[in-house]
């Protein structure tokens, strides 16, 4: 592509000066045309949503509040406490303290498990790098986007809270919706 661009590649915008006879016409004509435009929108229907009674459904890729997962068959936690999510987090909002599984006290499938797993959601930027970093699909970003709370300390989610099945508050978008 050559530079400078050819005149065919340019669109020149222009407009008349305001006032004068044209102005007088436009004060009526163009205003009526504008009113016609707005009036026509009435028939397009309603675009607003009555939140919170009605919730916006999210797409499958939506990154909401994190969830930790268990294996469905054994019930063991998928997380082995490897801390890769903490390493990947640009906001440093994940804290993992690992411990060792014992045969009597088995928490996860690997040698180690996360004894402490905390996400400070007030720091989280929902970039989803934790999900990308996790080699075991143990942490995923859920679809919940209603996370406001009355105190900051309540926004530090512990492992139990993240493992728990979330309240079905925010719907997933149905196929083709």
């Amino acid at each position, binding site marked *: 592509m050559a530079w400078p*661009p050819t005149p065919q590649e340019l669109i020149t915008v222009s407009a008349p000066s305001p006032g004068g006879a044209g102005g007088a016409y436009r004060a009526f004509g163009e205003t009526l045309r504008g009113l016609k435009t707005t009036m026509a929108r009435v028939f397009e229907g309603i675009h607003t949503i009555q939140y919170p009674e009605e919730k916006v459904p999210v797409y499958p890729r939506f990154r909401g509040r994190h969830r930790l997962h268990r294996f469905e068959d054994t019930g063991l936690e998928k997380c082995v406490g490897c801390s890769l999510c903490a390493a990947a987090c640009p906001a440093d909002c994940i804290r993992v303290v690992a411990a060792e599984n014992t045969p009597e006290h088995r928490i996860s499938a690997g040698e180690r498990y996360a004894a402490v797993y905390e996400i400070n959601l007030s720091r989280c930027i929902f970039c989803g790098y934790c999900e990308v970093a996790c080699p075991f699909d143990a942490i995923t970003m859920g679809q919940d986007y209603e996370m406001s709370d009355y105190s900051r300390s309540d926004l530090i989610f512990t492992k139990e809270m993240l493992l728990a099945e979330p309240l079905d508050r925010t719907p997933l978008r149905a196929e083709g919706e």
Partner: protein
Amino acid sequence: MSSISEYRAQEESITMAPLGEQIAEQGEEDRELMTLNIGPHHPATHGVLRLLVTLDGEVVRDLKPIIGYVHTGIEKTAEDKSYWKAIPVVERMDYLAYYFNAFAFCGATETLLGVEVPKRAQYLRVLHLELNRIMSHLVWLGTSALDLGAMSMFWYCFREREAVLDLFEMSSGQRMHTRYIQVGGVIEDIPAGFEERVRAFCAQMPTRVDQYNDLLDRNEIVLRRLRHVCPMGADELLALGVTGPLLRAAGNPWDLRKAMPYSSYEDFDFAIPVGTEGDNYDRFAVRLAEIKESVKIVEQCLDGLPEGPYITDDRKVALPPRHELATSMEALIHHFKLVTEGFRVPPGEVYYPIESPRGELGCFVRSDGSSKPARVHMRDPSFVNLQATAPMTKDAYLADLIATLAMLDPVLGGIDR
């Protein structure tokens, strides 16, 4: 403590004394200049911009923009993160052009690394960049029209903006700050059904632009507020470093997408809207026309979307495919190292400019050979363009200052960084 008080002192030292003396010399002692503070929390400043305006009656004699109220130290923060982790950080500078921020940074890093980006990734990037441009212009149009008193425009623009954000959510999982663009490509391929939705949006968007035009373009009030108001010539704009729609409105067709094509922009057929006078109307009309051109590019992206990988297959830069993590030791090690330490970038420095909705967005990155950038700097167009406010609005009415500021389209997140 001392630094704060120094800043305060500097702020308070801003006086218009010379102007007052001038007026006094002209024998008009009874006239008095008034200093009016606008912002930082004012709806017309489009963010936390503070303006110290010296008024002579209703006429703006001088103006001092004061910035820094949303300084977040993002450039410095990026120095402490590996390149991978810096992407979501730099994205948050100009919060209406997050794809552009991420792309400028990734482009700079890729240049340093010498990584080839697959064609499909380049197209996917352009697709999202142009959708982002439409989205950014819609926010600008909605808020600017609001400043001029056109309330319904705000709702219309945000309706279309929601449609774009829905598309972003569908492809990358987030409506803003998507971190979709990664070094070497994009993080995921577009999902099934995405193309139809984008096409539907593209089919509708030009009609919407026409409707906006019906409302505004020849409206006498709009013309009176914009036409011939606060014009500035291309030469003066260039001298101030102003780029983007503002420069094109003055007749200079400078557009980096055509002047220095990147990310396969040379493959697309689109026109550059230019103005003639460089007044507020041209600034307004150029942007509206750009939305239509962007829609064309998006459609061409979908038409010509090549098959192939969406991210480079260089294992030293891009994460290995997830399915390999369970079987391949090499993949697991590379995943682990890329996630924790990140790739190392050969020493060097690069400046990577792209055409953002507001002009030339350049990302400067210096690497010292480690896995964290030694320096990241963004040449944010809002910051440079803001310089033109004072000369543009000198001797204009206060109401025109508001209109001019709206047509400047500053985004304070980008200015303060």
